[in-house]
């Protein structure tokens, strides 16, 4: 079978698996977030937390819960990194330097998992599992909680509350992420991933050289890294590393894990608002964009249109033989379409247009399907903006799922979609404006520009992948990218929760023939159009001077 046709079947098989699984998982998540009952583990946890589980929260209280939890998380992750040499299982690692520790703490709490460090030479086992992997779980659970709160805003009528953050956080963790992770980790170990607490194992190679085989609880962290669309690898090489992604099929499985929850959440959304077809409309928008992006990335990488890939005969620089070009491209698209940022191949060495696709995926706001939770709420914001323009065009005050989109809603949605482009573009401009910051570029010319653009796009969108040639473990980049990650995460969350509050308080408008149908192909196409024109085109000037200039030379 040719590489191309195998690659296409690979994509089809992923789609088939997601189609098969989204339904039970989506329904299950609906029940998790809707039921009034707490299980035994949760009751213990709530008692330890000292929170009242029956107390519904207004959006403000909910948002303060998210922020309080995140601030404490940053402090704890920072503290563990700085003190790791005094803690068990440090495997000889020094304390992490302050700016890298700050950057990493923000990075993991914001679900970005940008790696300014190299895992195998910086982080001890305890830091990996008790600081970083814990955030892999909870930052994902926070994302889902916020998305669910927004969906409740649509579903509820004349309600002052949007749920209870602590309950949503614990349920998302205990009932969704933890069970799948446990099972998934064992699957990955079966595929060859390691799971131990050993330090470095020195061996002598066949030709007499030395090699240090590393150890660690990799599988348990790898699975939630993908499932929670986190992306922070145990190792510097991330999912390209054989201990993180041992076999051809673990690669398939990891992509599947990345897309699993984001593609199931629209169904959960549909169930919660009582209109499955609305969930499927959102899913269709995500699917159209995602499939287009995956196919384009494959086309660009497989055709290898650039000088070095032409010289080498294929775009194999930075790619593993076992994955090949196509499966690497599919992974790259999946990881940037979501907020994952894990990589099984190095985007910096991609063809100009292949690399541009990974950038564009993030620039779209990571909504197709996006990070766990964040993808759904990002897409719903785009739907709200589309509904506003489309709603006017049918001669009504726009409404989505029965909720009127008035000045307040548009203000919140507009601010939401201002945040990331402003962070990306301002950050890139600041970095590009100074020769010493430009000195961090590994590559010259337009590709160097792409590296910096990629860094700020990735951080502000909480992706975490990189055009990794850029040297970012400098104080300026650590701080600037840390700020981008923090603002890129929490400003949108606050705006989304405010929107949830505003929507929940409304009484819904009944649907009629005059109501804009938001589940038909026309509307789906319009959301796609708005996403591409309004969001991606903002970045066209920057793209023109980066990947487009490089690829069209």
């Amino acid at each position: 079978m040719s590489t191309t046709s195998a690659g296409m079947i690979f994509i089809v098989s992923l789609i088939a698996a997601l189609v098969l699984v989204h339904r039970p998982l989506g329904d299950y998540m609906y029940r998790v977030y809707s039921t009034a009952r707490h299980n035994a583990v949760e009751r213990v946890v709530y008692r330890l937390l000292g929170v009242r589980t029956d107390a519904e929260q207004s959006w403000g209280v909910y948002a303060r819960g998210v922020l309080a939890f995140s601030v404490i998380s940053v402090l704890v992750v920072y503290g563990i990194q700085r003190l790791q040499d005094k803690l068990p299982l440090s495997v000889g690692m020094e304390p992490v330097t302050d700016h890298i520790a700050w950057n990493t703490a923000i990075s993991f709490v914001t679900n970005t998992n940008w790696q300014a460090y190299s895992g195998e030479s910086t982080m001890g086992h305890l830091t990996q599992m008790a600081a970083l992997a814990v955030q892999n779980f909870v930052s994902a659970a926070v994302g889902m909680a916020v998305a669910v709160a927004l969906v409740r805003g649509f579903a509820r009528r004349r309600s002052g509350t949007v749920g209870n953050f602590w309950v949503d956080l614990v349920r998302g963790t205990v009932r969704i992420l933890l069970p799948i992770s446990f099972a998934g980790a064992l699957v990955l170990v079966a595929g060859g991933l390691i799971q131990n607490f050993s330090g470095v194992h020195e061996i002598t190679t066949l030709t007499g050289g030395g090699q240090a085989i590393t150890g660690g609880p990799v599988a348990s962290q790898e699975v939630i890294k993908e499932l929670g669309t986190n992306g922070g690898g145990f190792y510097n090489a991330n999912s390209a590393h054989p201990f993180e992604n041992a076999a051809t099929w673990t690669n398939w499985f990891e992509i599947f894990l990345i897309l699993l929850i984001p593609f199931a959440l629209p169904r959960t959304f549909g169930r919660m608002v009582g209109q499955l077809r609305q969930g499927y409309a959102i899913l269709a928008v995500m699917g159209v964009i995602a499939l287009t992006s995956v196919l384009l990335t494959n086309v660009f990488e497989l055709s290898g249109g650039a000088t070095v890939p032409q010289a080498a005969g294929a775009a194999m620089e930075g790619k593993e033989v076992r994955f090949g070009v196509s499966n690497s491209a599919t992974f790259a698209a999946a990881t940037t379409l979501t907020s994952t940022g894990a990589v099984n191949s190095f985007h910096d060495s991609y063809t100009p247009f292949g690399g541009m696709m990974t950038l564009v995926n993030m620039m779209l706001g990571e909504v197709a399907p996006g990070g766990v939770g964040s993808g759904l709420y990002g897409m719903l914001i785009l739907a709200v903006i589309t509904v506003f323009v489309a709603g006017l065009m049918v001669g009504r005050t726009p409404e989505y799922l029965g909720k009127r989109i008035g000045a307040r809603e548009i203000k919140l949605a507009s601010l939401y979609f201002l945040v990331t482009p402003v962070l990306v573009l301002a950050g890139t401009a600041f970095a590009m404006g100074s020769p010493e910051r430009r000195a961090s570029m590994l590559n010259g010319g337009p590709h160097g520009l792409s590296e910096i653009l990629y860094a700020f796009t990735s951080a502000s969108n909480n992706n975490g992948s990189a055009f990794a040639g850029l040297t970012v473990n400098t104080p300026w980049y650590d701080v600037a990218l840390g700020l981008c990650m923090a603002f890129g995460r929490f400003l949108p969350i606050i705006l989304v929760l405010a929107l949830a509050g505003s929507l929940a308080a409304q009484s819904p408008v009944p649907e009629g023939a005059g109501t804009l149908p938001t589940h038909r192909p026309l509307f789906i196409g319009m959301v796609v159009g708005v996403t591409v024109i309004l969001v991606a085109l903002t970045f066209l000037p920057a793209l023109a001077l980066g990947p487009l200039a490089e690829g069209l030379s």
Partner: protein
Amino acid sequence: MERLPSWLRQHLAALRAVAVLTVLLGLAYPLVTTGVAQVLFNEHANGSIVQAGGKDVGSALIGQSFTDADGNPVRTYFQSRPSAAGDGYDPTSSGASNLGPEDVVDVLAAPGTEGKESLLTRVCARSKAIGELEGVSGARPYCTPDGVGAVLKVFPGRAVSVNQACPAVPFVAAYQGLPVECARPGEDYAAGRTVPVRGDVRAVPVPADAVTASGSGLDPHISVAYAELQAPRVARERGLPPDRVRELIGAHTTGRALGFIGEPAVNVLDLNLALDRP
């Protein structure tokens, strides 16, 4: 607790939540997973270590260099791909070259400045070296016969083969009527227009994976084509019948899982171990 201001109460709850979840997710979960994994998949969980003569010689999953102390290929072994991990296949420094697809202009070493090879020149140089090692042509598109990137900087009135340090002979004498010069190290050619020259190489015996570094720098595999390219040399060096070597290649090739996942790949360490086995 009820009397505390709400923001403080919330932060206390947050602190407790982080603590409780850290114990649950950061300790209990990895410990239990490790326990189960160690019982069910002991070998995998511990790194798929392979032994030769009772000693650990590596991991089946981690590639290694088959070079001598000077970094020259050991001719009796199949060679791995180029690696960007540390000095090559260093698991404590995994990673890729991260060089871009249009990284084609070298910085030539000159007195006072260190040179920097472009990705294109690396590809060309590797190809040339492998060609020589395997006794085939190492020529590639965009490469000069002397194994650097075939790239011109075009100025009004002249052109410079920018990767060929003088006194090298430029790979072409003239470009669109302009005379082509060799490059003088230290001179700034930035103002010229960059023109990679494809050349007219057709057959390229050295496959792509042989001239590119992997993402992890620890790629345990090479393509079947690269293995087959090396087979005659290994057979010759070891005095084995070529068919036997090809047979071993076949035995250590993993095809696509389920027929469509991934690419066929040859595990170099396994293959070399099999060769060593009497």
